[in-house]
Each structure stands twice: as C-alpha cells, then as structure tokens.
C-alpha cells in the first residue's frame, strides 16, 4: 500500500517497509512515474489531484496532514501546511481548519515570485536571509505589490539579503494571523525547508515550532496512515 500526494506543484509517494519510511518526490506532471506497476487497490490518494489519480480511497490534504503530523508528533495541537498554492492551518485540538487560497501573499507562490525577481533559486533564500544585518519593514499585504516595496527598500540602501529577510518577515506575519493559540506548532509543506522563513516565523510567533524530518511527505504519509 502507498500514500500518494499529488499536489499543485509536486507529487509524493510514501510507503513503509520494515517500519521504515521510503519516499519519492517528483514534479506533478511526472506523477505517473510514482505509480508504475502499482494497482489502484494499493493507492490511498490525497492532494489537489486526489480524485484524478487512481486510488482505492482518497482523503483530503487536511485530514492527511493531521494523520501525518500525528505520526511524527503525537498530540500535535496546530498544523500549518505551507504549500505552493495555498496555506492551511489545522487546529487539531478544536477540530477546525482554515485555508488561504485566495491571496498569494502567504503561500509558496509568493516566495517563488520573489526568487524569480532576484533570479535566484528558492533554496538560496534561506541562506541569503542569514547574511542580513538589518531587516527592512515590508508592509504590503499584496504579494504582487510587495515587489514595488522591495524595490523601494533596495533603492533606500538595503542589501538583497536584507530585503529577502524583510520578505520572509512579511510572509511570516501574514501566516501568523491565521494561527490559533497553541503551545506548539507543527510546520509542514515544501516551503518550510526555507530556514529564513522559519526563523522569521519563530521570531514572530514566539512559540515552539516543530518540523518533521521530511516536511514535504507528511500528507502522503498521512494518507497511508489514514487507511490503517
């Protein structure tokens, strides 16, 4: 049995062999590679395309995230899943969830937009953030218009590294509005590999933030766990 998470940008496959998690990640357009030789009876799907791929059963990303996060952190209170096209906050304690899929400012798409502007890889943003000596205030709540504010800060003398740090703070502030009261928060999704953004979020939330070893595969793992 496999857990298959086919999301808006990447597809992930998880199986458990001898108690060990085995996974593979690819671009969404290559999702078929992940199910080669696997019958639909052995697939539990999740993610945006959960209904479109072969599956025995499907489960939403929200429920999958809950099961996946529980696997790593039993008793988890709040899960924040920062995806490529949306951000989901799941309040496990109160059995509630909210999704931001209307505004790019608090999603991975925004950081991708900024990386494109600076012509750098997304993965570089965390490293550049760590070199910032000052953090400029970026207030704009619109992801697209934040670029004009970024340019203003560059013209005002802030370095690229500092502006990127400012962007991470703006991003983290945006997400913090969605997060309910809790002692600890579990962050999942591909975006949480960005250390700059995590450090901004830690600073703003002032709460214990837990990140699974492989934050990107949590939903695929959760789908698998859900089936059991």
């Amino acid at each position: 049995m496999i857990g298959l998470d086919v999301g808006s940008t990447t597809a992930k496959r998880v199986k458990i062999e001898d108690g060990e998690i085995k996974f593979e990640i690819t671009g969404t357009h290559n999702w078929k590679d992940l199910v080669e030789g696997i019958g639909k009876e052995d697939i539990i799907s999740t993610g945006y395309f959960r209904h479109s791929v072969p599956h025995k059963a499907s489960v939403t990303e929200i429920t999958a995230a809950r099961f996946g996060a529980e696997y790593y952190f039993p008793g988890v209170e709040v899960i924040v899943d920062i995806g490529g096209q949306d951000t989901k906050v799941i309040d496990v304690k109160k059995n509630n969830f909210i999704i931001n899929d209307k505004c790019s400012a608090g999603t991975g798409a925004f950081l991708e937009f900024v990386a494109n502007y600076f012509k750098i890889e997304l993965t570089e943003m965390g490293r550049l953030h760590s070199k910032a000596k000052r953090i400029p205030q970026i207030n704009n709540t619109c992801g697209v218009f934040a670029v004009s504010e970024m340019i203003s800060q560059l013209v005002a003398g802030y370095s690229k590294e500092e502006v990127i740090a400012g962007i991470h703070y703006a991003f983290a502030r945006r997400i913090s509005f969605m997060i309910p009261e809790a002692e600890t928060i579990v962050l999942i999704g591909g975006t949480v590999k960005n250390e700059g953004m995590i450090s901004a979020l830690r600073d703003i939330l002032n709460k214990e933030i837990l990140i699974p070893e492989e934050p990107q595969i949590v939903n695929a793992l959760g789908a698998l766990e859900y089936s059991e």
Partner: protein
Amino acid sequence: MPKIGITALVPPELIFACGGQPYDVNNVIPESKKYPKNKLCAWTAIWQEMLVKREIKIDSLIVVAGGDCHNALVDGQKAAMSGIPTHFFFYPFDGDHKYMESQLHSLCSFLGDIKHPEKFRQIKELKKAGQLIDKKRVNGKISAGEAFRILVSISDLMGDLDKFKRALDIKTPHLNAGIGVNRIALIGVPPIYHDFHDVAQSLDLQIVFDELPYEFVRHTGADLNEVAKDYCNYTFARPLDFRIGFLQKELEKRKVDGVIHYTQFACHHTLEDEILRQELDYPILTIQGDLPGKTPEQIKLRLEAFREMIARS
C-alpha cells in the same frame, strides 16, 4: 399587475394584498454570468447594475434598507437615482411591532393600499404547505436542493400564487437515495452558487436547515396587524443574541451534526462569524463566496474535509 422588485425579505402578503406582483431581484443572481463594476458584494452589485440597465424589468422597487443587507442601502439608492420608483423599508432592531406596523402602513401607501385582503390568508395557507416541505427535507423525504429551491422562492412566491402552489407538489419524492448521514445546518445568507445544496449532498452533507429561507417560510399573518407582530421577529434584523437563541433551538430540534456558515465577500454578516463560532456548540465550517456560478473546487475541498472532520468528532 405591477411588478414590485424586493431586495430582501419584504412581506409578500402585503405586496399581493396591494395588488402587486413581488419579484425578488436576487433570484437571477446565482445563474448570472455578470461581472459587475464597482463591486463589493456580488449579490447587490449584480441586481443594482441589472436594474439600472433595465435588464430586470420592474415597475417599482422596495429596498430593505434597515435590518438586513447594508450594501443594499447604497445600491438601492443607485437604482432609485436611475429613475425606478423606490421605497426604503426598515425592520425594527428591537422587535417593536408598533414600529413594524407603521413601516407596513407606509409601504401600503407606496403600493396603493390593500385591495385584496384575502391574499393574506391564502399566503398563510401556502406557507403552511411550505413548512411541510421543510419538514420533509428534515426527515430526508426530499433532497436538500429541491427543498431549498422551493423555500428560497417563498420570498416572492414566484410572483404567482397558483404557480407556487403547483411547485409545492413535488413529483420526485425519492431523491433521497444518496442522502448521507451528516446532518448540516446552513446558516448566513444563501450561497451564491446555484448547485451548492446538490454538491453538499453529493459529498454526504445533508443540509437539513437553511437559515434565511426558513425565515421566508415561517413568518406570515392573516392581516397587516398579524404580519407586523410576526415579521418583527425576523431574526436577521434583530440583535445577534436573539438570532443565536433562535438558531440554538432549531439546530437542536433538527439534530444537526455540523454547521456551515456561508459568508459573502464584502458582506457585513461575515463579521458575525466569530460570535457564531463562540456561541454555537457544533463543528463549524466557514466558507466565503464571491461571484455566482457553480461551487468552486476550493469550496468542495473544504466541504469534503469538513465531512471527514465531522466523522472524527
């Protein structure tokens, strides 16, 4: 028979009794493909634009300007300024039936006074039959979508009492084959998506309560005085604690498993979400719609996740 546009609940009893044909201008919105200019709430923006362009043909307009939709006050004035004879109607916030009576008298003057008093009783009977439709759907005898389409049309009784009577006679009473086990109350303004109830049902969420359409069917009266005494308790016009008290009783009576609070983009009712969540002791899903059409995939994801959430609670 003059066609009288209404922007929200206005006692149709009185309009018929005064010889008018009520027409709820919201009826055309869910199927509309318009993208209105200068938009806050799509509901009011679309009817406003259509009225000003005379794409909705009415002889005069009654705007519920106090006690319901706040955007309608401005959009109603735009329609009035375009030359449509318009009356502004105000519900009492404190439920004062004397005030309500004075509002109804003033409305009567606008409509040309009561000419057919028998309409009050006829409509009272029709609303009794409408309540049976509501009961049938609570018991799973008809689908939520079918019940909703009838209940929501009670705001203007389809402009024709005979036509409405025929609509009550549902020929397909076995649509409940796929009805799920999750009993849902839908509160707030009605969703702007024309297929919402059917989509919810396909995801095993059986809507057993439609807050606003239930207001349409439960208020009535055999004469102006009775109408005043009954409609002054229209919950959307009253303070929140009054509305919440009413909701708590209905949700308990209907044995709901969860609540969906539909909110409309740029509608002041959205601000009530926090309070409703505090006061109603049920799993609550809040969704927000904007433009009309089919229920979007993002909303379907939320409904599906809500069903999974209820299953665990």
